């Protein structure tokens, strides 16, 4: 037993304090008068020697509290012998990340792991784990060789990206729980891209000896489809195009044939000249897919050992453009022109604008429109306004542009907000107002660049108390407000959509604004047709509870149990392929999942870095690890926690006894 902070043992001297106090208590009695002390003698020494300690149990508790406190601060420890061969644990980690699919790497790793298992001492426990983006422990520390070999055989190639940082973190956790030295065998291709940003994240605990078993010595050339830019929704196949980046890792300059595959059929092919160790882009000008979801991929001809990254999966949904109803005054021909042009150019033909003058609006059927735009309408026919209000409450949405006509009436239709006043900035000294504040968290204003340059000459001010203000002008007039009405939304733009009350329609920011507003009001947010392995797919929002979701993985299995399907918020995409998903809102999605292309770079970690990681000096690391292991056979185990528990008990006993004695003393006359 020893002490990690022996200087705190000085505190043991404090134990003299209660002894002194208990003696002093006797000593401090009231002096007694006596007629003469001529026959007495001073007997101080004798007095202390014969002075009897009272309340011995209380004194012992007090002394114990002080002594144990000093002991606890001194941090006592005992050395536990933990490094005997019988207690040493062997941890065999087999890398099954995506890069291990190259050639026979995984089979080589498994074979070498089995040979290590066979060479170990039969009484020595071993544990098998697979390393991907995280460490999957397959067995407990056991000695049964057959079970261990079966665990090794069960390891399948994965699509995740390997992470040595995650390996180190997991091993640290295991070591803390095991309290035993660990002999870590890593069977991996030692891919450089699996290293974390800092080597310190790979540091292993001192009682873990790392023995590396590289299964790939050289850097293999590898071509891969690195990324694909393709729309997830297509309304007009002629306006959709696909761009694919073909990358070569440590490859010579070569020509590759890139093919666009839709539902298993090659629809287009391009020849791409990839420079040595560089990248090239293949562009497919159209994406002719059938209605509904299509499984698409860009594929290159395989010419390397890692064929799994020669294609890139993505899903595309084709549907008809949705109509948008645009209500305007008969004399207003500018606003439908500007808004329609912006909608056509921004939303990739996903919307068609149906422009209707206000006097003919009563005959329209609102239910077929994605959303409705009221552009500076002076007055709406009462039946149409009622229909519009019913449409919004039922889940529809409306964008209201309040131009100069809003000044003629006291309230905004549908929104039911009172117009406080109209600001004509052109008559002021500044001539115009600009946007001062924007709420970029709102979906309709996610990209707010360029708003500062827009000049507003006219705007109406409404009471914003019941609405969410998304943008304000420099005089704090709310410019863009969102108000939820029933199930739908009503968006108020406090100026016109023509270029008379502002120059917004002729500014570049107008197009993305129209696109975002259209997507927000129509409820069709942008979908991603492709994702990476280990990313998370959002299955439901917090409001969509108790609605079942469904996930079908690339193998055709349903990985979610019924309970999980009814409650889980997200799902981790663990393997490459197409996932068919039915979300809680009823939407059916198809997601193409691809492995992280950083796994395509098969360059191994430099030898010196590996030596540094092993920390024991290269090829004889195992020998030195064993040496260190024997030196560290005894490791300190702190006892301060136990000391503190005893302190607590002693303090409790002291309190009880002291309270009892005090009561006794108080009762004495």
């Amino acid at each position, binding site marked *: 037993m020893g002490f990690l902070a022996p200087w705190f043992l000085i505190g043991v001297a404090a134990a003299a304090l209660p002894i002194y106090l208990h003696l002093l208590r006797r*000593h401090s009695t009231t002096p007694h*008068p006596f007629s003469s002390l001529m026959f*007495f003698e001073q007997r101080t020494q004798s007095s202390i020697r014969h*002075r009897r300690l009272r309340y011995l149990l209380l004194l012992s508790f007090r002394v114990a509290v002080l002594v144990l406190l000093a002991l606890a601060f001194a941090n006592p420890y005992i050395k536990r012998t933990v490094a005997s061969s019988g207690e040493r644990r062997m941890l065999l980690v087999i890398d099954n990340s995506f890069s291990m699919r190259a050639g026979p790497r995984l089979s080589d790793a498994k074979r070498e792991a089995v040979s290590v298992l066979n060479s170990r001492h039969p009484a020595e426990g071993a544990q098998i784990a697979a390393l991907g983006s995280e460490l999957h422990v397959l067995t407990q520390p056991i000695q049964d060789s057959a079970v261990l070999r079966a665990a090794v055989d069960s390891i399948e190639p994965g699509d995740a990206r390997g992470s040595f940082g995650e390996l180190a973190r997991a091993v640290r956790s295991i070591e803390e729980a095991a309290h035993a030295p660990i002999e870590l065998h890593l069977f991996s291709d030692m891919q450089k891209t699996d290293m974390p940003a800092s080597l310190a994240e790979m540091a292993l605990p001192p009682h873990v000896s790392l023995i590396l078993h590289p299964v790939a010595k050289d850097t293999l050339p590898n071509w891969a489809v690195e990324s694909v830019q393709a729309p997830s929704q297509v309304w007009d196949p002629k306006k959709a195009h696909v761009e694919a980046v073909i990358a070569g890792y440590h490859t010579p300059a070569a020509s590759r044939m890139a093919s666009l595959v839709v539902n298993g059929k090659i629809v287009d092919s391009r020849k791409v000249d990839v420079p040595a160790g560089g990248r090239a882009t293949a562009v497919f000008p159209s994406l002719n897919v059938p209605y509904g979801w299509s499984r698409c991929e860009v594929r290159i001809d395989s010419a390397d050992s890692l064929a799994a990254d020669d294609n890139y999966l993505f899903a595309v949904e084709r549907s008809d453009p949705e109509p948008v109803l645009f209500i305007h005054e008969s004399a207003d021909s500018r606003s439908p022109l500007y808004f329609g042009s912006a909608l056509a150019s921004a939303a990739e033909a996903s919307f068609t604008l149906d422009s209707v003058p206000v006097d003919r609006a009563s005959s329209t059927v609102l239910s077929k429109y994605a959303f409705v735009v009221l552009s500076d309408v002076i007055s709406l026919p009462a039946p149409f306004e009622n229909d519009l209000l019913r449409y919004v409450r039922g889940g529809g949405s409306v964008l209201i542009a309040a131009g100069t006509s809003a000044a003629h009436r006291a309230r905004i239709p549908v929104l039911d907000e009172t117009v406080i006043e109209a600001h004509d900035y052109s008559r002021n000294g500044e001539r115009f107002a600009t946007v001062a504040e924007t709420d970029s968290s709102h979906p309709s204003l996610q990209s707010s660049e360029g708003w500062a340059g827009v000049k507003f000459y006219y705007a109406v001010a409404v009471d914003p108390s019941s609405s969410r203000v998304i943008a304000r002008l420099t005089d704090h007039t709310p410019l863009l407000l969102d108000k939820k009405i029933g199930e739908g939304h009503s968006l108020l733009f406090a100026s016109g959509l023509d270029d008379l009350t502002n120059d917004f329609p002729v500014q570049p920011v107008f197009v993305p604004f129209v696109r975002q507003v259209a997507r927000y009001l129509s409820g069709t947010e942008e979908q991603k047709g492709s994702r990476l392995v280990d990313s998370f797919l959002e299955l439901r929002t917090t409001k969509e509870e108790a609605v079942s979701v469904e996930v079908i993985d690339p193998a055709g299995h349903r990985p979610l149990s019924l309970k999980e399907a009814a409650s889980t918020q997200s799902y981790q995409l663990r393997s490459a392929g197409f996932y068919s998903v039915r979300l809680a809102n009823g939407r059916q999605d198809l997601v193409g999942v691809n492995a992280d292309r950083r796994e395509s770079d098969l360059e191994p970690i430099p030898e010196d870095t590996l030596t540094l990681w092993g920390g024991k000096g290269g090829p004889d690391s195992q020998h030195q690890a064993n040496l260190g292991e024997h030196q560290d056979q005894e490791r300190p185990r702190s006892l301060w926690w136990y000391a503190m528990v005893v302190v607590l008990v002693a303090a409790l006993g002291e309190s009880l006894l002291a309270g009892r004695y005090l009561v006794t003393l108080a009762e004495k006359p």
Partner: protein
Amino acid sequence: MQRFLDPVVLAEISGLDLIARTVVDGFVAGLHRSPDFGFSQEFAEYRAYSPGDDLRHVDWNVFARTERAYLKRYRGETNSLLTVLLDASNSMNYASGKVSKMDYARFTAACLFYLAIHNQRDAAGLIVFDDEVRNYIRPSTRQGQINRLLHGLELAEPRARTDFAKPLDHFRQFLRRRGLVLILSDFYEAPETIIRTIEPLRFHGNEVVLFHVLDPKELRPDLSGPAILFDLETNLRMEVTPEYASNEYPKRIEAHITALRDRARSARMDYCLLVTDRPLDAALRQYLTIRQGRN
């Protein structure tokens, strides 16, 4: 009547005169003698005449019958002179019970005065001293002397410390006539010093009696544990163990008493130990014994 001699009972009585009367009357009644008992007229002996003797003392009746001249001698033919020296130092204030040593000494002195004046027709006086003479009442048989003495006793409050050497010269001046000198004190001084200081009183022909007044706890202290004691005279503080108080101290106080008694007797002085939990008759008995012996 014995209970009236108990100092604890006497402490409940407020007036010293009443105390003295109670004690002395009870004491005298306990002797089974007549209250008119006296010594002054009592015949002692005949002695043959020798030239130079006072002819007034010749018993002429005997001469007539025998034609021989004899002198007739009586006891107590003269009154005694009683002087009480009362120690009023702070140490006399010690009390383990209800009666302090000073109270006890006062009771004793009051009783002696009462007995001397009322019963023996003796002149009685009082000297109160500590480290100097604080009060002196000349011995007298005049009317009201008993009241003066009792008043002097009541005024005698313990103060300062005992010092026999310093007031000794005053004692000599006051005690020029032969008589009986009773010293009431706790005698916390070395016995040789005490005797050396008091012994000159004997040279004038005085009978000196040392009444050593002690509290029972001074003879055998009772300490339950280590304690701090402080001296009533010097205010000195001392830590004392019960072992010492029960083993060593009684031996030393006993040795002190023995030494004082022995030295007093060797100096032809009488010694009487008065313990404050005992009745007062010891002092009275001692006084009467000595008084009888003088006649």
